[in-house]
């Protein structure tokens, strides 16, 4: 057992090689992500905090009733009172952009894996890897390729948050009743028609469960991503740790929790309502 496989060295060398031979690819990706996240963030920042709160309260009332609307109102008041209004907007922007990218990549992959056994066989272990690797390990190469700031934060978040939506989309498509699929084909569906009119609508409940999980994982990762300077509520959490400030730690943590509950219940309600129908 004296010889140690240099796995770490290999990966480091690979990352190093990529960094020097990407012909500006990462630069371009970084610019695109930075621009879009920036746009979302400034878009959200453009919305006053009270309007953001009103949107949450409104959706909460629509999907879950007045009790939950009241909870949203109380949460936003508390967040504002603790002085986290701006950070919350930044965190939401990060979650929003990371989720959008995760879904834009994850849903097509999920559909592919759902319809093709070989694709599923390849994608599955990759997803397991992405999900079980400790989250902040992604921060290192992300920071190396994209520098510090919100771009590596978003990218690390995307990697961490994408697996559930891929998995559940694939599962949803695989779980569509066999005779329903046969009915689609028997009435003359092309593969695209089959996907759009039979498979995806039937997989909707699973798809929404996947989106919900992806948002929740994005939230948890966005906090960690403050280590590479992504900003938002995570910054407060991080500085409370470095200063051993229990008070700040609890307050910023509470902000995250409230945000998590609101996002979770609201996105979950979309999936559940569909299941009932």
């Amino acid at each position, binding site marked *: 057992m004296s010889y140690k496989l240099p796995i770490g060295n290999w990966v480091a060398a690979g990352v190093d090689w990529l960094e020097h031979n990407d012909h500006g690819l990462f630069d371009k990706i970084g610019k695109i992500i930075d621009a879009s996240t920036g746009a979302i963030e400034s878009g959200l920042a453009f919305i006053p905090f009270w309007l953001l709160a009103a949107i949450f309260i409104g959706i909460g009332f629509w999907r879950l009733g007045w009790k939950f609307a009241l909870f949203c109102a109380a949460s936003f008041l508390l967040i504002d009172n603790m002085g986290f209004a701006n950070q919350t907007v930044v965190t939401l922007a990060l979650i929003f952009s990371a989720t959008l990218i995760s879904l834009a990549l994850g849903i097509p992959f999920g559909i592919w894996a759902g319809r093709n056994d070989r694709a599923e066989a390849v994608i599955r272990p990759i997803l397991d890897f992405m999900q079980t690797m400790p989250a902040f390990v992604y921060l290192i190469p992300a920071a190396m390729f994209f520098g510090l700031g919100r771009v590596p934060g978003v990218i690390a978040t995307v990697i961490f948050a994408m697996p559930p939506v891929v998995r559940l989309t694939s599962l949803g498509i695989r779980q569509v009743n066999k*005779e329903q699929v046969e009915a689609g084909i*028997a009435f003359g569906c092309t593969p695209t028609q089959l996907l759009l009119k039979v498979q995806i609508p*039937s997989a*909707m409940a699973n798809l929404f469960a996947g989106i919900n999980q992806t948002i929740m994982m994005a939230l948890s990762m966005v906090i960690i991503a403050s280590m590479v300077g992504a900003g938002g509520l995570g910054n407060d959490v991080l500085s409370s740790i470095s200063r051993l400030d229990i008070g700040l730690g609890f307050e910023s943590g509470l902000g995250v929790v409230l945000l998590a509950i609101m996002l979770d219940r609201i996105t979950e309600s979309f999936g559940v309502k569909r299941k009932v129908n």
Partner: protein
Amino acid sequence: MNTTSNAARSNEATEAKVVVKNLYKVFGNKPDVAMQMLYDGKHKDEVLRQTGQVVGVLDASFEINKGEIFVLMGLSGSGKSTLIRLLNRLIEPSAGSVIVDGEDVAKMSTDKLLNLRRKDMSMVFQSFALLPHRTVVENAAFGLEIAGVDVKERERRAMEVLEQVGLHTFAKHMPSQLSGGMQQRVGLARALTVNPSLMLMDEAFSALDPLRRTEMQDVLMKLQQEQKRTIVFVSHDLDEALRIGNRICIMEGGRVVQVGTSDDILQRPADEYVKAFFNGVDTNKYLTAKDVAQKEQVTIFERPDDLANGFSAALERMRIYDRVYAFVLDEQHKVLGVVSAESLMACANKSGAKLRDAILPDKTAIPSNMPLNEVMKKVVEYACPLPVIDENGEYIGAITKTVLLRKLCKEKLA
């Protein structure tokens, strides 16, 4: 337009709609190897053992006539579902041909196949297979939607068909709000909306309870009377096959063992398998109470104004007809109950007794459409003969043990 096509169809009554020739289906990753072994005369079990390939359909050849209901029968796993799916190529054939209206489905281009499925061939499924996120009318219009017909037109046509199957008032409901029988009416409507000349039904009514099943068979027969389509109907229920099938095709282990009318098959079973299949046929199921009810019974009308006279008149008539029991009816011919000579005499001696008081305590009536095997259970239960009533509750006759036994013996001998 319907009348002309009907006439055209009946002229071609004996023409073949579908010709299946030497059709094979091998499930697995090495169908060629398996096919070679089958051509070399190897048994399918040996093919499975040596290559792991499952033979689903084995050298099937038969013809389906225009406008007939062709029932595929066989035990579970005999290849019925596979065979019916080879007809519209939901399953790719391994060898052989499926010629529908002169064209080989097995060799058809994708475009042509899609067109055939959209325009002229549809399917009804055992689990109904409705799309849960669509309303009844959207489900019924599905085939036309896929074919690119615009919303207005396809929903108009779907509504017409929903009306035919008695579901137009449920058009805006979701499938989950309907009972199983109603859901399958939607399944049937979906298949009919494209107005196909060939309909495939895989155990379409098997998931329904016996009552609904018969009801759906009647719906199908009625539709078939209005417009003759060619229907391939998979069933494992013999009663169903005998009831609706013009011809029956018996399958065993992927093979077609016999094709013929039910009489053909009953009288000249091709082998022991077929014979065993039909041994279970319970002819009593096809007879109902009204087929054996006897009209020659003594019936007594109860008149409210009648006082004592009723008893002796009744007794006298029972003596003339040599009956021990008589049936008491009201003026609307509704059965009030059964009286016996004994109960009448007992009451006749009491002062102030009415005809009603002579009615025997355990009274029951048999609906005229009750199957004979259930009638038997009832008759055994009671000492007296049982009155048979129609759907309005009116008396139409009675069943006694003797009559029933005689009838059953005759059926068994025939």
